[in-house]
């Protein structure tokens, strides 16, 4: 059993937090993981991605081979498309629809959405608005996570446990906000 996930976004949008939560959940199962991150120059507002590999057997490569990712998990719609060469034909795109426009030539949003909708398995939704609605403005990434976990074969209980463990030191308010965000995301995908 393996799950290869490309996490995508723009530097500073919190994709490494997602990797930490999923990694924690996988390790709690006794699985192995490899997680290649981007540090350095691209973190200054550039496109960033992380290759997260979870498996119940030995993982060799730190990078996911092209054409074999089970999921592109993105917190920004155009960034989701940047990693299409990695997606398996049966793989999922789960992405936030709110664009992050820090470049002058961002393409028309409708065209970006149409390209995402052209992928057989996709969930495209406005995670920012949901995060604001449920008063967890800074947990947009966790809302997207909620929409993704079922496709990754994780139960809500497993991810809740990991969120509690990882955010515990930030206090109950932060834990609660993230649990609300998770639930809101789960509701989207079900």
């Amino acid at each position, binding site marked *: 059993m393996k799950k290869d996930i490309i996490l995508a976004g723009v530097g500073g949008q919190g994709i490494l937090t997602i990797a930490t939560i999923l990694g924690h959940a996988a390790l709690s199962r006794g699985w192995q993981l490899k997680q290649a991150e981007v540090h350095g120059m691209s*973190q200054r507002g550039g496109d960033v991605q992380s290759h997260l590999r979870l498996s119940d057997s030995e993982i060799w490569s730190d990078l996911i081979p*092209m054409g074999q990712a089970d999921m592109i998990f993105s917190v920004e719609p155009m960034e989701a498309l940047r990693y299409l060469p990695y997606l398996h034909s049966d793989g999922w795109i789960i992405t936030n629809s709110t664009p992050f426009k820090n470049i002058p030539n961002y*393409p028309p949003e409708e065209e970006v959405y149409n390209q995402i909708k052209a992928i057989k398995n996709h969930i495209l939704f406005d995670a920012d608005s949901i995060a604001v609605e449920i008063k967890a403005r800074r947990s947009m990434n966790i809302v997207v996570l909620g929409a993704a976990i079922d496709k990754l074969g994780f139960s809500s209980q497993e991810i809740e446990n990991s969120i509690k463990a990882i955010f515990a030191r930030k206090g109950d308010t932060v834990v609660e906000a993230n649990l609300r965000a998770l639930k809101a995301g789960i509701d989207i995908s079900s």
Partner: protein
Amino acid sequence: MEKLMLLGDEALAQGALDAGISGFYGYPGTPSTEIIEYVQKSRQAEAANVHRTWSSNEKTATEAAIGMSYAGKRTMVTMKHVGLNVAADPFMNSAMTGAHGGLLITVADDPSMHSSQNEQDSRYYGHFAMMPVLEPSNQQECYDMAFYGFELSEKYHIPVLIRLTTRLSHSRSGVQRRDPLAQNALQKPDDLFQFMLLPAIARKKYKNLIKMQADFEQESLNSPFNSFSLQASDTSKGIITTGLAYNYLREVFGHDPIPYPVLKICQYPLPMEQIHSMYDKCDSLYIFEEGMPIVEEMIKGANFKGTKPIHGRLDGTLQRDGELNPNIVAKALELSDTYGKDIPEIVTGRPPALCVGCPHADSYLALNEAVKEYGRGHVFSDIGCYTLGFMPPYNAINSCVDMGASITMAKGAADSGLFPAIAVIGDSTFTHSGLTGLMDCLYDNSNVVIVILDNSTTGMTGGQDYTAFGKLEEICLGLGVEKEHIRTFVPFKKNFEEAVQIYKEEIAYEGVSVVIPKRECVQTLKRKHKMEA
């Protein structure tokens, strides 16, 4: 012992801590920075009083590490690949002096130039210096190689180069710890000639270094990190991998056994005996290495009997530049390859950019206004976040070559008559390699304006402190810049007019001026607020 989830950089740091290290030295540089950052956060390092503050540059760091080795203690110096150019002098000569306490020189290369100005391969330096090189293929090997490296270093009294690459430095996986070793006691070298490279002594030491090469090769043949098997069903190909290329090879065969003989190399000098026997047994060789084709070149230069094909980056079987991945390895071996869909054409590039609110932005907008009348092509810059001032909407700078080159290139251009000649350098970069260039300018009274962008941190690598922090004006004054030509302002939009005026006045002054726009990096400021909240 417990299992930890660590980046390759962190695994090496934890390994060195557990292997009884007494001090780390280094200058930040992607992808090596996380080694010392990890140690700075480590309670174990604090309890054991391990040296872990940053040095001014890679050269001073390497020399300090050689000094710690002289005193009998285990030590490591860390840097990115281009940092080894700065440290090349002590590095090359450390192979001549040799080590006393275990000395590991860790260099993280950046193939594909994710965050660098070139993709030079540090294994050439290892070969050049005739030093053993260790190149881990995974996080566990990073950890284990710290122990092994110190052992090797102390056994032969030789520094050992540890070569990392971006994908391993910045990839996380499980690492099994071992029981920690104690630090070495303070002990002067038994041979007080050891670190004395007067020609008469150096000649003897060089002969000794040459003599040890056979021992180093024997160590590679027996290395626990290399593996070699000629037992295979198919000898049409023999495969040689270096470093993490081995993982890509295993990945493309999945759960199937690899039908060909495989030599996994993670320790150098090359185990030539094994390579010869592979060449004799197989019809062709395939060489997969992360980085430049040094192994391929050396094998092609070896004295083989026959003309069997040797495939790699040099004959185009693999791309000549950039990092490897599983797909590249699969294609080279003519295995079935997979690919998703092409990136839609509407997807545009998203290059890194100065952060919203970055002080450099205000410094550049004012500078652009001040030099507008001269046209573009007058601003030499340097290595750091502010290099992003090249991008629109700023288009403010015209060069980025190496640490410190802004000042000296501006000097050379000014000496040629270019006016104005302006250097833009960060505060940490100035500390690293700017002071000597400034002295050259002062010696000649060159007509330059040197802008030291003071954001009070080493920004690009994530916000590390630096040795000249808070002392820039005093340093410039002390070096001999005239007091009335050291100008400062706070780069905010509201101070735009003042900034333009200062730049213009100093451009008009014939001689050396230093302008210091000073405002803290928004990233480090944000982090401080978070910690206080």
